[in-house]
């Protein structure tokens, strides 16, 4: 028997080998639910980046991640040749700059994490193991949040390290800008949780990737276009609050609270407090997670 209690046990013999191809019991370690959760998370993260899958599955996530890195490269070039202050791409507005890339990343990746499992009815097997439905949802959400965090944080970290090394005094730069790191992380967490939970909540309701992607992008862009138009036309008090339904903008504006930065055009036009945008973003995240969980609790695999 193998170390893990496998079946095949080659028996050395003078005139060849005898293989026991029969069933052998497993006597190795059993790590229970913890191992199942790690497995679900790890496979979700790999699937998000197309790892272990055909080349075409890797194109979209890696291309989007590369595009998200471009502003950081430009900013570093400007910082190296002229001055960091003159760069249009800064820590506090970076997520706003790559907001559409983040949106596209979720559009591509979220359906990939949920739809095939429903379409191929693999959930019947998953839920017959020692995990709960909440475990599955939690692991998939954690995988997408982590994938998005990597996507959001990579350019910011790249920018920070680059800026650190293009200045004359590295130590001075670090001490002056160290406080930006938790803000970068906090804002990335907010954005990743927000977009991941909504994208998964949409994807959970269909087994077709195309519908999940279309539904999410429509919800994000149509909502913002509609409420912005209504506000631009009416410019009254109710339409001002209606802009809080600009789903693609809400978390980006909310990061102004974290960076203590100037509001963007929509936030400035409405004059709504950034705290209100932050509250709305957190409320939408909570609602999306509730919808996601409810869907899986009611699903018949």
């Amino acid at each position, binding site marked *: 028997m193998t170390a893990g209690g*496998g079946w095949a046990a080659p028996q050395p013999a003078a005139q060849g080998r005898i293989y026991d191809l029969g069933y052998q019991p497993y006597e190795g*370690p*059993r790590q229970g639910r*913890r*191992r199942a959760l790690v497995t679900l998370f790890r496979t979700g993260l790999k699937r998000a980046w197309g790892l272990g899958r055909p080349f075409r599955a890797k194109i979209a996530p890696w291309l989007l991640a590369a595009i998200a890195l471009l502003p950081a490269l430009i900013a570093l070039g400007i910082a190296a040749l002229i001055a960091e202050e003159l760069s249009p791409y800064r820590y506090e507005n970076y997520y706003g700059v790559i907001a559409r890339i983040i949106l596209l990343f979720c559009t591509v990746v979220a359906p990939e994490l949920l739809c095939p499992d429903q379409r191929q009815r*693999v959930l019947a*097997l998953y839920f*017959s*193991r020692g995990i709960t439905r909440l475990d599955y949802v939690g692991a998939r959400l954690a995988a997408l949040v982590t994938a998005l965090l990597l996507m959001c944080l990579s350019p910011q970290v790249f920018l920070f390290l680059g800026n650190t090394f293009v200045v004359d005094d590295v130590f001075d730069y670090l001490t002056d800008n160290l406080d930006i790191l938790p803000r970068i992380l906090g804002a990335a967490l907010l954005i990743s949780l927000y977009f991941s939970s909504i994208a998964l909540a949409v994807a959970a309701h269909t087994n077709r990737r195309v519908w999940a992607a279309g539904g999410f992008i429509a919800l994000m862009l149509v909502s913002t276009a509609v409420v912005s138009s209504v506000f631009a036309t009416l410019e009254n008090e109710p339409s001002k609050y209606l802009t809080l339904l600009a789903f693609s903008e809400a978390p980006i504006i909310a990061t102004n609270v974290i960076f203590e930065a100037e509001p963007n055009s929509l936030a400035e036009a409405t004059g709504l407090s950034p705290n209100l945008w932050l509250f709305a973003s957190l409320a939408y995240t909570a609602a999306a997670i509730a919808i996601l969980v409810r869907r899986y609790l009611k699903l018949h695999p």
Partner: protein
Amino acid sequence: MSGPPGAASEPPNDAVITVSGLTKRYRTVTALDAVTFRAARGIVGLLGANGAGKSTLIKILLGLLEPDGGSATVLGYDVTSQGLRAREWIGYMPEHDCLPDDVPAAEFVGHMGQLAGLPPREAQGRAADALRYVGLDEARYRAIGGYSTGMKQRAKLAAALVHDPRLLLLDEPTNGLDPAGREQMLEIIRRTGRTQGMAILMTTHLLADVERACDYVIVLDEGRLLREGPLESFRTVKPVLRLDTGPAAAPTFAEALTQRGLSARVQGHEVLLDLSDFSIYDRVRDLAAELRLPLIRMTQETSTLADIFA
């Protein structure tokens, strides 16, 4: 058993499945109606027509469905309050397709092993062994999408076996298989249950599958328990003699027997005769000789599984 705190420990006792007054309703349909039985170790066949409640019962035993009434335990665990613990020791093979198309069987079965709590290296080793056990050794690195129906069924069985469960729940395991594939699947099930002593509950609507593979039979009909017992108990000898006389002679033979005071009736090209005592064998032989009627075969009628649905 080694393992960290919280890891799976052996099931508490040898009880396999106990079901008591189990009821499940879907709006106006009662899928299970106060079903009660107790299944011991061995290969248990859960027999019933489509819609009899077999799959519903399996899903309740897995803790995937909440019953509306009654209770059930699997391997000593209550399915509603301890379903999670029970599932660590159950291998489940669904009736429907449930395999990803674009993944090799070795990878998927290994993944299922890890979902059952096995460390990655052990899970991969067990996956290779399980696939070899079900006869998919050569094909294990091919994407499942290219498999035939029979290969997919065997891959599902490998996924159910990979973590060495104490109970296998097989939902229509021979579904969609050709005769050769069906025989192979039943042979694997027989081998797993008989040589390993693994408890198996197998649902099917095919009487022949039960007769070939099972030790114990539970029959469901429209959500109700129709009958249960060892397979042999369904094969009782009846006090009826079946005479194969050929199609032409059957009516004459039956009439002659009736004239001699025996209770006989024609069924197809055979005559059925109530067997009150064994002297009737001699009387039938003598009558055939006297009237020069053909008598090809005399056999005592035995009941089969099919009789319970008659």
